[in-house]
């Protein structure tokens, strides 16, 4: 396969989930901040809620690595 396609596929595998993560966190962050203003004891839940979408970016990174390795 043309190496350009492999590189583009790896780039898409990491960038699309990263954008999705950013979008999700942009929605979760303000909601969490508002909740914390009223109930500071929710800080643990807040950390988890903000960290959860990062799974997408991290798994995207793993997939990108696999694509690059398979392609090589």
């Amino acid at each position, binding site marked *: 396969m043309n190496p350009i396609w492999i590189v583009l596929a790896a780039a898409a595998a990491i960038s699309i989930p990263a954008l999705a993560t950013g979008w999700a966190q942009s929605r979760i962050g303000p909601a969490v901040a508002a909740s914390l203003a009223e109930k500071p004891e929710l800080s*643990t839940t807040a*950390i*988890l809620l903000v960290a*959860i979408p*990062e799974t997408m970016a991290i*798994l995207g990174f793993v997939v990108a690595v696999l694509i690059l*390795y398979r392609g090589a």
Partner: protein
Amino acid sequence: MIIPMSRIRVLGPRGRLDAVLGAIQDTGLVHLAEPKLGELLQPVSLSERESRQARYLRAMVREVDDLSLGARPGSAVSPGAPEAGPSEHPEFARWARTAGRARRELARLDRRTEALERERAELARFEQFVAAFRGRLPSGNAGMQSYHLMLRGEEVQAVTRLRAALSAVLGEGFALEAADLPSGERAALLLVPNAEAPRVEQLLARSGIQEMPLPAGITAGSLGATLPALAARREGLDREIAELQGERRRLLSVAGPELTRARAVAQDRLLELGAREHAGITPRSFVVEGWVPAAARDRLARALARQFGAEVVMEEVSREEWRGEEAPVVLTNPRLFQPFETLTRMLPLPRYGSIDPTPFMAVFFPMFFGLIMGDAGYGIVLAILAAVLHRRSRPGGTVRAVAEIMGPCAAFAIAFGIGFGEFFGDLGRRWVGMRPLVMDREKALLPFLGLTVAIGFVHVALGMVLGIVNAGRSHPRQAVGRGAALVMVCFVAIALLAGVRVLPHGFFTPAVIVILLAFPVLVIAEGIIAPIEFLSTLSNMLSYARIMALGTASVMMAVVANRLAGAFGGVVVGILFGLLFHLVNFALGIFAPAIHGLRLHYVEFFGKFYSPGGQQYHPLGHWRPGDAEHPLPAKGTS
């Protein structure tokens, strides 16, 4: 672990209720619970006099708290005094008067200090003004009126406009100088002949430019002559403020100890009154129930017997009469694991009778942290940071716990750093010839991925085993379902490994057969939703790939930081940029592993067995500074 609790019942003559509660309070062992009330056994309600006393004491406690004994209260002084009321303790009334006097005196001192500090701030501003214009205008300005003008951001152009307006009115007969002050403001000094002062003032008023008033006690004159007067006034203000602060310290040192004692006695009495509401009474007797650690039950029985003899009886309520979720929870762990209770307590406490995850967290959390950081250099810096925090924190505090958690995390980071051959990225390899002993994270991405998913498998499988143990105590059917899920997870892993030829291919078919056999057991035991949960368990294991992702990102950033040192023209600039990049990477290297390590525990691991819902153990004891205001279980909980 969660220590075993006993539910106890204390019975005695009604007239001895207060004495018995006092004795229980002295032991500090019993978490009060409400006895089962009925027609015969009635709740104790406070008399009107006692309710009034409780209100009085609460107000007194608030008043003492508002004084912030030992700390500067500033404006945190309550305007109200305790409502007038009875005080059964002979000292209460005197203490209340002392607290009121101290509050009024402190408020007076604070008002005076604030006024002087305001004046000092104005003085400092004017000093800046004088310093900015000193020497820029001729010293002989007899017959001239001076105006000190302050310009806000939007008025900066106003100097030009003002100069034009003054020229139109006065011709050349004025002097106007502008300067920027260190505070960021722009100032202007205007000198005009005394005769023109009224016209100039009208002009200034129309243009809306703010004139800076002279500080109190400073008379208008030449700028050179003003400076000594300003310095003298500043010294006077410093002296006066220091005297007021000394007076405040003296007042607190005289009244503080007595008021602290007053607060403790009042809080103790409030606890006594609150404890009575947890008792049940009949016309002749009382019943008090509560929870004590099983190991301390005999100690309590001996204390009551010693004080009341056969008059008061203590018995243990049989296990059949109470449910596990009613008992309060006390976590106890070996010294090494105790700091990790802080992480467990970030979630609601585990239910009584379930498993305390602290020991597992104490092992796996630093391991995950170390795997992600995986750099001996960063690990050493973290260890130094932990040592500094440990030295500067007080025992039992959150900061001390954080320092003690950082210690094992640093140890794991150093150990994995040596295994991966990393010391500030590839610096160790380039400078001292370090070699990776286990794997090179920079290159062996796939083996690292496999390692992290394998760790995920072990961690999640351990969680499932704990879930089986938890469920086995109360829900055997659920335990069977969880067992089937665990078997399926293990054989899915075997089938996958056989599929990719890591294990002999002959394992594949038997593994699939076992999965097919376990599947109906899973559905029958846990319902139709179980297969979905099973799939989520598999995705939980894949979630551990984040360890590899974050670890790889960390090592790459460290390598980039080292490359930066050579990428710039100058060596010094390159080293500075490299250090800055390492600093950023180190900061990320602390936060990312901590947050993702917590997430892996709270979501992936705890989700398999953790049963929240335990209530905190709050024994009735004597109040000490630092305790919660009302450390009693809320009425209505059993």
